[in-house]
């Protein structure tokens, strides 16, 4: 048979020091209760209400979650029964955070920690994390997660309020090591040679505010916290994947156009330029048909060697309705020096005219060479050249123009993601500047 008893709500007590009322919420678990009026820590489990400590009331800190707040969190109803501020000192500066003690009589204890608006939901770890290394850093593995060492510090309790299931003391110091793998943080606390582990999970203050129906808004978030999940986590990889997919799609699209391009020769003829005296060398070709739709490429191939020529060209419709004027310089120089053979420029040039209407066309060609430039050329001021006109040629230039545009988003994402991690680790023992400071 079940005894079926019901545990009465804990009666409050009167502070043995100042007589003030102390509310109790933790049933017989409570090993320390704080009198807020006179800043005394009392052991309510002793009949004479032993005063464990009296601390300086100048240290008072106001909790952002009031004691007695209740909320359903992770499927269980919890009540805030204790609050402490803990502080570490680094480079002469004090960094303080809040710890809220949550209690449920069936489920025990749990913590919320708060630093610069960043919250963690912390529970005791029962298994034994194993020490390892990750990326050259000290790390621990637990439950399949590898957390990198973030910070080693001496944490001092600097203010307490409410109740605790242990004998709490202001001024008590513990050695704390934090290991992170966002959103997780494994923390070890050492006191008297014993290590106790806890695991925190980064949580949004808004979720806590909603669960505990607290007034106003949670404290403003500043900076990046040790185990804060990166908003770019996974986005770097996916942005590169997107880049890869788009590039392949773009290349496939272009390949389609290349394979389906007509690329038809509509005109080709060879000419020779030979003129000892400067003058008008303009002439026109016989007419030819440019059928269908698309671009037109005009190719000039020369046999220039250490020489230079300029071509004034015009593609003109026979009916005079349309004409395209353009010019191209062709120059090719080569030789051999102490570094070996070299060459500069090219013997051929090409012009692409986008979207030329179908019709009957002819070319006007006006080649020009320079006597001074040709003076050193073996063949002098002469050249053989060929002009070819092609309809609907495939172009890969567009691919190379678009590629840099496609690569911008993944590069940008990678940069901001790295910057976020930089801010995270800037707060750790491994910050580049911080380690230099400590070496001094």
């Amino acid at each position, binding site marked *: 048979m079940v*005894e079926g008893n019901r545990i009465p709500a804990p009666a409050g007590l009167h502070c043995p020091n100042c007589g003030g009322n102390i509310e109790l919420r933790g049933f017989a*678990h409570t090993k320390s209760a704080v009198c807020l009026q006179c800043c005394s820590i009392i052991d309510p489990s002793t009949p004479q209400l032993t005063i464990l400590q009296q601390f300086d009331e100048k240290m008072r800190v106001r909790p952002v979650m009031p004691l007695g707040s209740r909320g359903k969190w992770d499927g269980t109803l919890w009540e805030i029964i204790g609050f402490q501020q803990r502080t570490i000192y680094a480079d002469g500066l004090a960094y303080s955070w809040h710890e809220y003690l949550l209690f449920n*009589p069936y489920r025990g204890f749990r913590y919320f920690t708060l630093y610069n608006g960043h919250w963690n939901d912390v529970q005791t770890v*029962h298994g034994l994390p194993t020490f390892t290394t990750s990326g050259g850093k000290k790390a621990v593995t637990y439950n399949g997660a590898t957390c990198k060492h973030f910070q080693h510090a001496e944490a001092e309790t600097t203010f307490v309020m409410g109740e605790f299931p242990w004998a709490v003391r202001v001024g008590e110091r513990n050695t704390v090591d934090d290991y992170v793998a966002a959103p997780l943080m494994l923390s070890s606390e050492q006191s008297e040679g014993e290590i106790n582990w806890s695991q925190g999970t980064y949580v949004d203050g808004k979720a806590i505010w909603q669960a505990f129906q607290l007034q106003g808004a949670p404290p403003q978030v500043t900076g990046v916290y040790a185990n804060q999940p990166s908003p770019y986590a996974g986005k770097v990889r996916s942005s590169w994947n997107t880049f890869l997919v788009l590039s392949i799609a773009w290349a496939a699209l272009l390949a389609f156009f290349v394979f389906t391009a007509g690329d038809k020769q509509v005109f080709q003829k060879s000419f020779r330029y030979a003129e000892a005296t400067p003058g008008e060398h303009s002439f026109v070709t016989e007419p030819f048909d440019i059928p269908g739709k698309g671009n037109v490429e005009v190719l000039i191939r020369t046999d220039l060697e250490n020489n230079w020529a300029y071509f004034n060209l015009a593609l003109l419709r026979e009916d005079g309705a349309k004409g395209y004027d353009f010019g191209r310089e062709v120059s090719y120089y080569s030789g051999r020096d102490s570094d070996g053979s070299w060459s500069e420029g090219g013997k051929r040039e090409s012009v692409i005219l986008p979207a030329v209407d179908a019709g009957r066309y002819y070319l006007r060609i006006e080649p020009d060479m320079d006597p001074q430039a040709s003076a050193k050329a073996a063949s002098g001021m002469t050249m053989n050249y060929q002009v070819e006109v092609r309809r609907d040629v495939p172009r890969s230039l567009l691919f190379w123009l678009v590629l840099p545009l496609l690569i911008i988003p993944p590069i940008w994402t990678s940069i901001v993601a790295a910057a976020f991690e930089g801010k995270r680790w800037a707060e750790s023992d491994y910050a580049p500047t911080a380690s230099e400071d400590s070496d001094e």
Partner: protein
Amino acid sequence: MRRSSDCPGCGAPVQFTWSSAVQTSCPFCKAVIVRKDVDLEKVGEVADLPPDASPIQIGSSGTFDNKNFTVIGRIRYEWAQGAWNEWHLMFSDSSSGWLSDAQAEYAVSFLYSAPEAYPPAGDLPRGRVFQISGAQFMVTHLTQVKYVGFQGELPFTTSDRSHFMTADLRTTDARFGTIDYSEEPPVLFLGRFIDFESLKMQGLREYEGW
């Protein structure tokens, strides 16, 4: 399998819920009764346990590894930083185990007959690793334990207990072991930490306001 007998102190009928129980107390005269073969012997009087906040009580029932259990006894211990309960469980197959409740952190364990002889508590450094039943158990805590009192039926007598050492062993996967130096040679309990919900316990105490 209930067994009834008369209290050697006051003659009132004393019932054993569990056939293998060695110690119980008389609900009428509070005599501590130890069973020796078929006889019952009064070895002292039970002291009232201090109030505690455990939701578990004698008669509570639950399930562990698909076996139903009933809570038939309890030992209360203290250490430097608090107190805890070892609830004695009788399983549906008559085996017995322990459900420890330390500030509402729960673990179930069983006596493990190991071939190994354990070094004395004083020679056992933290960090020492034992290979037990295929896993590595590391000594993490050495605890000076004070026996406070008992309730209900136990598989052994506590009449010779006052202070003793335990060594707590942990694994990477939330199993644990306790080397209990209250006996000579020391005995080993192996078990694991569990979520309270998973025990699906019934007949629990209730809390005003919750």
